[in-house]
């Protein structure tokens, strides 16, 4: 029997010899550091804001983010969340985006958030005209889902040489390398082409249908004045996509710290209680 297995094993080894599995995978992602990667790290909200700008001006022409709504941008933990904070010079309460470190502020409901309203209004989304029943376009409201660039999968493929641009809602969770993978793809083009495809060493199979999206520096003019180098834009959009995939990360980590401290205290007390109960009992 054992001999038979050995023979079978040898035969199979010949058959399987030299499988080209490895060539199919892209290179491991670049070693890039993001502030959210450490166990207690949080998002760099300025980068998330800039990343949204890159998404809105570049990525969103082909990629949907169907699980996000414009309101998400202004919800607690979002890049445009507004807080009512006291201005220490004037003593007045005023609304501002983001909570400055160490400050207390009342979260302003996203329904009243002018930034989110303005961002949403900048996109046209389809709707049904209730008097005619026809499909029309109207400016988006905060409660609308992100505009889908294509009506359906076929339209998306038709516009992209048959390739389907993936939805980006959870892209950093759906790719093994996460945000670093996104960054590597965006900065990993070699400049060569094979037919209609582009060589990108970080992409599985090394040939990607997406033309280099961040082809030149300054493609986006950042509203905060940051110089939009290709590297900067790739970093920012990767950070934004990570936020989009995991918007409650900061709340999660904060609660995690509290829970673990609590459990450590509880464990210590339970250990003492356990010892006290068993005191005098040999075991």
């Amino acid at each position: 029997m054992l001999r038979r297995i050995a023979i079978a094993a040898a035969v199979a080894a010949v058959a399987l010899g030299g499988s080209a599995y490895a060539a199919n995978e892209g290179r491991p992602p670049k070693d890039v550091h993001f502030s959210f990667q450490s166990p207690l790290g949080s998002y760099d909200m300025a980068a998330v804001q800039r990343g949204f700008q890159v998404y809105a001006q570049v990525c969103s022409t082909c990629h949907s983010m169907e699980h996000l709504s414009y309101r998400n941008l202004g919800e607690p933990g979002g890049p445009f969340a507004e807080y009512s904070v006291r201005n220490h010079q004037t003593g007045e309460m005023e609304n501002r985006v983001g909570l400055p470190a160490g400050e207390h502020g009342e979260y302003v409901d996203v329904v009243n958030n002018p930034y989110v309203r303005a961002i949403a209004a900048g996109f046209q989304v389809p709707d049904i005209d209730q008097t005619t029943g026809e499909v029309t376009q109207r400016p988006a409201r905060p409660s609308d889902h992100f505009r889908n660039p294509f009506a359906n999968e076929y339209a998306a493929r038709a516009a992209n040489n048959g390739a389907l641009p993936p939805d980006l809602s959870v892209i950093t969770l759906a790719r093994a390398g996460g945000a670093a993978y996104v960054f590597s793809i965006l900065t990993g083009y070699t400049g060569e082409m094979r037919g209609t495809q582009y060589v990108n060493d970080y992409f599985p199979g090394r040939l990607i249908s997406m033309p280099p999206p961040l082809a030149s520096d300054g493609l986006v003019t950042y509203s905060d004045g940051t110089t939009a180098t290709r590297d900067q834009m790739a970093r920012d959009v990767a950070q934004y996509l990570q936020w989009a995939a995991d918007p409650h990360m900061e709340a999660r980590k904060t609660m995690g710290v509290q829970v673990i401290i609590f459990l450590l205290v509880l464990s210590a007390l339970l250990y003492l209680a356990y010892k006290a109960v068993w005191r005098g009992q040999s075991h």
Partner: protein
Amino acid sequence: MAEATAGGAHETLETTRRDFIFIAAGAVGAVGTAATIWPFIDQMNPAADTRAMSTTEVNLSQIPVGQEIKAIWQGKPVFVRHRTPAEISQALRDDYAQLKDPQMDEDRTKQSNGSPGKAEWLILQANCTHLGCVPLPSFDPGYRGHYGGWFCPCHGSDYDTSGRIRQGPAPKNLYVAPYVYLNDTSIRIG
């Protein structure tokens, strides 16, 4: 004798320490359990997408005088009533009648930003303040009210042309829906 006393004191101290540990562990455990329960209760509250449900826009030019439509706002019906001059004058006359929930007709057409509305247009949440049925308007065949506004078929609450409760079990007037005029012929509810 002295030894025995010392031992007794030691014993008492030991018991106190043990009790303290048990009480502390029990208390911390109870706090933890209570804190754990909250997320499981809160999850049944409206989710963020539900809370951010969009506003509703209504085009008024399509509604003839004396008619109403039911717009849907946040999943609930809203009466948008185009009142006749007779209905308006009756509502104004009744401002000083014996009312269960006194309110001026002028206040009932006010926009949510505080500025006055238009007397022809009454925008009301369409659920009876008794138990939430949708009352029937005066032009409905099933209408059996006496005040020319709405009549609730469930338990007979009778509302006037301003949507104020006049008779029946409902405790409050029909609630005014929050709305603003976007222009002369359209409003936004919410």
